[in-house]
């Protein structure tokens, strides 16, 4: 059964509490912009949209510039490396929500050529040694599925391999 509503009745303080579950299937059309972004990730390319008025490159891309309301159509490829702007190490566990086990790190990464940050997971990292300003590189998922985890996570770039 796709639509499911169940009820279990409990008692608290002499009053009844109805406990149920809401499970409703839903379909979200990704639209032209996100579909093209995910098509790019299939080829390990990160695509953004440049605002002609603000001259900024938005990654991930979106249809409308929030600042000037321009319709965005100018696609650009940005780097798969960038700078960590902020991060957090999560210590609590939410197995239904978290794609990886705690402790793990989230960060906001500004890719080279982009003007906005991308929120994502940080992997293959010493999570105790994370610092804003460090450089990270996208690790692409082997078998893309057309969602945000087609970049599996960002990993720190070894300074020795860089420059």
């Amino acid at each position, binding site marked *: 059964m796709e639509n499911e509503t169940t009820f279990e009745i409990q008692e608290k303080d002499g009053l009844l509490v109805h406990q149920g579950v809401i499970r409703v299937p839903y379909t979200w059309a990704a639209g032209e912009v996100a579909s093209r972004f995910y098509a790019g990730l299939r080829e390990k390319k990160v695509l953004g949209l440049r605002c002609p008025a603000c001259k900024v490159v938005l990654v991930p891309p979106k249809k409308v510039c929030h600042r000037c309301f321009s319709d965005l159509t100018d696609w650009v490829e940005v780097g798969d490396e960038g700078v960590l702007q902020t991060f957090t190490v999560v*210590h609590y566990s939410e197995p239904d929500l978290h794609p990886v086990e705690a402790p793990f790190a989230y960060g906001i990464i500004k890719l080279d050529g982009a003007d906005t940050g991308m*929120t994502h997971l940080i992997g293959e990292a010493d999570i105790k040694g994370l610092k804003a300003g460090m450089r990270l590189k996208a690790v692409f998922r082997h078998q893309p599925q057309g969602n945000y985890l087609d970049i599996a996570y960002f990993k720190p770039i070894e300074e020795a391999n860089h420059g």
Partner: protein
Amino acid sequence: MDKVAIIGVGQTRYERGNTKSFAELVYEVTRKALDDAGLELDNIDNVVTTTNDFYDGRTIACMAVAEASGSYGRDATNVEGDGTLSAFYGLMRTLSGVYDATIVTTHCKMSEGNPRKLFNQAFDPIYDRILGMDAISSSALQARAYMDRYGVTEEQCAMVSVKNHANARNNPYAHVALEITIDDVMKSPMLAEPIKRLDISPISDGACAIILATEERARKSAKKPVWVRGVAHCTDAYRLGERDLTYSAALETAAKKAYKMAGIRNPFKQIDVAEVYDAFSYMELMWYEGLGFCDRGKGGKLVESGKTQMGGELPVNPSGGVLSAHPVQVAGLARIAEAVLQLRGEAGGRQVPGAKTALAHGITGICGQTHCVWVLSNEEA
């Protein structure tokens, strides 16, 4: 702006696991606000409820609370967002000249759902929802960005928690009143760095209502009217990566507009008491800055100075703030209700003596995407 006053307020006690139904909770505060204003429902011609279908686990969730707010046979409408925004809508309708008295209600029973899962649904299903972020982990990204940028310390954030949880001991409506030290906060379990257990607000059940009235109606009210002197709201970009997380430009814009309306040039000097939306301890420091109580990056120094504690120059969150009770979508309206009590001199043990001008602040969205600022006074313009 024509004159509008708040003439009645009502709050429940905030707690977790309240066994009242939505309608029972809302009826309690509707009745309290009417009694406070010395009105009967016949005097109300405009009803604004506040609901969120996901939080409430039902479609068109306002149907669960509208009748308890007095909707039957009246013009009733609904807002999804913080209670400061429903109050803003109520204010606009009052200003339309069509209505005399407007009741604004809001409730929260989010503890009946799964707050972390529900908050995760605020993220974009096409993009980053799959990362599993919630209010704590997303706010941790903001806290780090802010603290790194200005050198604000975890101890300074902890001072907010110590101050507000202590203030809550004087508030009979508060959910979590604690006598704690900075060390207790620092040693509480790390949740999402740099945010610890005692840096976060509890999810609380509860409800709040206020009654707004035209000048003519306000002059006939039972209690001394509290006048709306300035109000504004402003929205930032939706995505965290598109905002300057180290500073709330939206709050600054909203505050400046509200101050301009209210004739406030030096908010720190001219405001006597402030109730702000401190969902996390670091937020109170950021909001000091956005509200112009101090310069950018100086929020930590301001709390350290003691000027925002009870007895200081500008006490912030005498009620204990949102850290001490966080009924989602109610908390901003509760800030307004608390400001009203302060301006009437009815705030009991949390009263700021002689308060004439008060500020109330609400937020909606991920990491305070939207801010709403109210300047209230017991003196007419």
